């Protein structure tokens, strides 16, 4: 077989740009999906039945749909609903955020539930409001418990961002596929893509392992 690896240095700039977009998608998705996840988790515990039900429906819907379907769905539905076209990047970000918000809300909900009721009562007994008790006492403890799970979610998300390449977000997967179809250097580009994903993903996985070790077995 006749391989020409020079295609890789030749497209280094484009690949680097793609990798940056992949990283940006991961970071922004998490930046959105963590606070939204906490919000949805709280809504699910709401005393207002319809609110709790709506939040539950949201979670069960987006947690159980394949991400790629949500990506396509956002691509075709968002322009109709909002009346304007969004960039592929924003569309991809919305799809990934919906899916990850649903996941994170479940993570936070179980984390919050794992904190003993006595902790809230001790805070209330000091004269704190329910909101203060949650923010100052329950949430910080829940954070430590869910951190390992969030780390795993992060590592998965980093790889799953490649799914948005189907709507032409200029991420790493999409960029590599573009170059492949223009240059016909299939093996070379797939290999380069695998190498870059791995090189970026491996340290993240190691950090996640470290977080598991450090925070996984408290109490």
């Amino acid at each position: 077989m006749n391989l020409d690896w020079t295609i890789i240095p030749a497209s280094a700039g484009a690949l680097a740009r793609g990798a940056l977009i992949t990283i940006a998608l991961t970071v922004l998705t998490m930046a959105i999906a963590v606070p939204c996840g906490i919000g949805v988790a709280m809504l699910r515990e709401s005393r207002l039945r319809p609110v709790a039900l709506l939040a539950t429906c949201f979670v069960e819907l987006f947690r159980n749909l394949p991400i790629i379907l949500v990506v396509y769905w956002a691509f075709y539905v968002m322009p109709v609903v909002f009346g304007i076209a969004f960039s592929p990047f924003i569309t991809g970000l919305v799809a990934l955020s919906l899916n990850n918000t649903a996941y994170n809300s479940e993570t936070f909900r179980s984390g919050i539930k794992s904190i003993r009721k006595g902790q809230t009562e001790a805070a209330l007994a000091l004269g704190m409001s329910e909101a203060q008790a949650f923010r100052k006492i329950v949430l910080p403890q829940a954070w430590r418990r869910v951190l390992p799970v969030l780390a795993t979610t992060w590592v998965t998300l980093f790889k799953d961002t490649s799914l948005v390449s189907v709507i032409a977000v200029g991420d790493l997967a999409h960029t590599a596929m573009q170059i492949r179809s223009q240059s016909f250097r299939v093996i070379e580009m797939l290999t380069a893509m695998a190498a870059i994903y791995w090189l970026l993903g491996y340290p993240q996985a190691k950090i996640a392992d470290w977080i598991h070790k450090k925070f996984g077995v408290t109490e």
Partner: protein
Amino acid sequence: MTAATLAMQPAPRVVLQYRDVRKLYGDFVALSGVSMEVERGQVVCLIGPSGSGKSTLLRCTNALETLDGGELLFDGVPLPRDPASIRKVRQRMGMVFQNFELFPHKTAIQNVMMGPSTVLGLSEQQSRARAEALLVKVGLSDKAGNYPANLSGGQQQRVAIARALAMEPEVMLFDEPTSALDPETIGEVLNVMKALADDGMTMVVVTHEMTFARRVADHVVVFESGQIIEQGPPAQIFDAPIQARTRDFLGHLGWDA
């Protein structure tokens, strides 16, 4: 009423008054017809078998539970129902729990500072000064930087007492403060409580430590099945109980009157 006229009023002698208090959990009657008083500066000990309603009464006292009947007056005023007023009441009562419930993500001193800084809005410096003084008082100034996980049970409970005292409460409620402790650390907690009582703190103490109740209490209340079966000064309860059931209960604990 302005602060000045309030200050001129003599503080009511009775701090807590329970009138025919009733509490239900579903169909289950946890408390019924409970009437008793706690006077300023008194130590009142609640004793009785497991499940007799002692904790429930304490939890009703600082509104962690709501009453289903009767009245509970704090400084002559019925316990409020709206959240903001309930918080004001809780700020004036300290509560100490059987399993400490220290905040594990905070150091000992941060635990003690929590009330003053979050609830009273004191500055970092003021809360720290107050917390340091209280840690000295409970004999733990050298453990200020320890996390609860690095304190013994007795030390944790003393920090929990300091945390409650940091709100400068008028009443302290203790729910079996030594029941979760190793025998060798019970004494240090009871000593702190005794010192508080000697300082004139009003205290309601649920306990199985009969020696403590006998020595420190001004008034002892015996519970059984959600009701008070007998109450009176320790000399009466421990030496000459009127009710046979009081004698039975104490007898089971190995105490012979």
